[in-house]
């Protein structure tokens, strides 16, 4: 019982910061502190009219969508290979592909910065961020897709092959529909990670900032903080929505493939 109480207290600790977001987003004082003064929706209105923000959101959406597509494709290759017979070095190669999961992000950021700018002499653009985000999102995609691919019954593919389908068409007509929920789930998770990523984006951003980089620049100006709170409220609501969809699909995918749910995203 006390363990249950502790866990609930822990959840309160986890949620405390994001609970404050809507409170200050609707508070009509310019300083972010208690006591609250009154209700307003002005900060949301200001979001609608800020051109720089719209540009940043546009950049971030482009980066997040491209990253999600690329890392889901790479994740599908790896997860499919993971569910197939072992060969030498397979575990090592898998471990290497999963490495960005534990690597400090600043290491990824500086190493790619050095290669892109100093060695290749390329400029920084949205594509440098996409390259880096795909690297860090792929392990998450693999983790999610593993759940979908590992539970597949191999006899389904064999049946399709026996009935005259080629490997390629068997994949698209039999396997892909079965792992589809996992694919969407992986897409949404990678999208969410990329949309929110700051540490790497700050190093690799070109002339056009991404949304987190734009938020970072706003954090220096106390007057813009209520707007940040309003923006944060929208972002949190959006991520919770996307994650809920991802979770429902992930579970449905595992159920569809006839597997047993073993837990969360990781």
């Amino acid at each position, binding site marked *: 019982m006390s*363990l249950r109480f*502790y*866990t609930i207290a822990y*959840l309160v*600790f*986890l*949620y*405390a*910061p*994001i609970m*404050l977001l809507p409170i200050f987003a609707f508070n009509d004082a310019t*300083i*972010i*502190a*208690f006591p609250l003064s009154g209700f307003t929706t002005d900060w949301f209105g200001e979001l609608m009219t800020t051109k720089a923000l719209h540009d940043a959101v546009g950049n971030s959406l482009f980066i997040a969508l491209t990253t999600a597509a690329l890392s889901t494709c*790479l994740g599908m*290759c*790896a997860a499919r*290979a993971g569910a*197939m*017979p072992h*060969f030498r070095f*397979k575990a090592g190669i898998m471990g*290497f*592909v999963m490495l960005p*999961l*534990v*690597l*400090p*992000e*600043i*290491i*990824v950021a*500086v*190493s*790619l*910065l*050095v290669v892109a700018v*100093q*060695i290749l002499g390329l400029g920084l653009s949205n594509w440098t961020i996409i*390259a880096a985000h795909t*690297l860090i999102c*792929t392990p998450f995609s*693999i983790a999610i897709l593993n759940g979908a691919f590992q539970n597949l019954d191999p006899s389904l593919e064999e049946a399709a092959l026996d009935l005259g389908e080629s*490997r390629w068409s068997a994949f698209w007509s039999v396997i892909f529909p079965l792992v589809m929920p996992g694919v969407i789930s992986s897409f949404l998770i990678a999208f969410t990670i990329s949309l*929110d*990523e*700051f*540490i790497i984006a700050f*190093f690799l951003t070109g002339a056009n900032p991404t949304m987190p980089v734009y*938020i970072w620049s706003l954090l220096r100006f106390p007057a813009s903080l209520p707007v940040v*709170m309003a923006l944060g409220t929208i972002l949190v609501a959006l*991520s*919770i929505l996307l*994650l809920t969809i991802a*979770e429902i699909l992930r579970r449905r995918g595992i159920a569809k493939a006839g597997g047993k749910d*073993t*837990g*969360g995203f*990781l």
Partner: protein
Amino acid sequence: MTAMAKGALTADQKRSMLLLAPPFAYALLLLAVPLLAIVLFSFWTQDFITLDTTFTLANYQEIAEKPIYFALLQRSLYVSGVVTLVTVLLAYPVAYFVSFHVHPSRKSIWLFLITIPFWTSYLIRVFLWKVILGYNGVINTGLTQAGIIDEPLTFILYNVNAVIITLAHAFAPFAILPIFVALEKIDRSLLEASQDLGESKLSTFFRVTLPLSVPGVVAAVLIVFIPTIGDYVTPELMGGAGGKLIANMIQTQFLALNNAPLGAALAIVAMLSVTAISLVFVLLNRKWLRGRA
């Protein structure tokens, strides 16, 4: 695995290799090559924008000689260590609760609830800790109004403590999930056996459950300890003048001071320190990890 002639691969193995090739090539090109590049870079020097590619140990010499770098690295390792300890200790009971006291059909909803805050805007979450811990923050106004304190507490913002609290919050789910997975793998009949043989619930925990969950704890420690060294956002926003860490210095060398080679050398030194400590930690625990994946 079936015994096969050396070098001969089945068709399925070949296809599996072919499928693994794209993600492997991607990681090779965008991770291994860049990592090699910064190692190389750390042996070069830069004077404003001209890069001198003669091999030199000057950067490492500078790091060894100037006390500021050592102090920052020491503080970073201390912060990462304390954050890891706090996170894992606080997370263990939560993982234990979800694994042992939650009905199987509701486990994933609990895990989902635990992971949600982790996915929501990192920058804004860090900033919100400033709102909670600040001079006019939630804690101070709350405690003042309740009559517990007269003066706002100042030891909780713009110092190392604030950095530790914020990072411990950010990495919480990272610690819970691996411990949960390890606890889930424990065969429940072992616990019954232990109690049938006369152990109390508490001694069953310390003699059966805890030792069997060590792999999860080790994974949790590594997955928290290693990435925290690379965070510069939290110390920048929460640390004040005395709470800056090695990652802030790396960032400054790259983006403000235009001394990428020195920044690269610092990144490598930080990375090597973390890796060395992690290896020692894993070795110390190898007794508990043996025989398990």
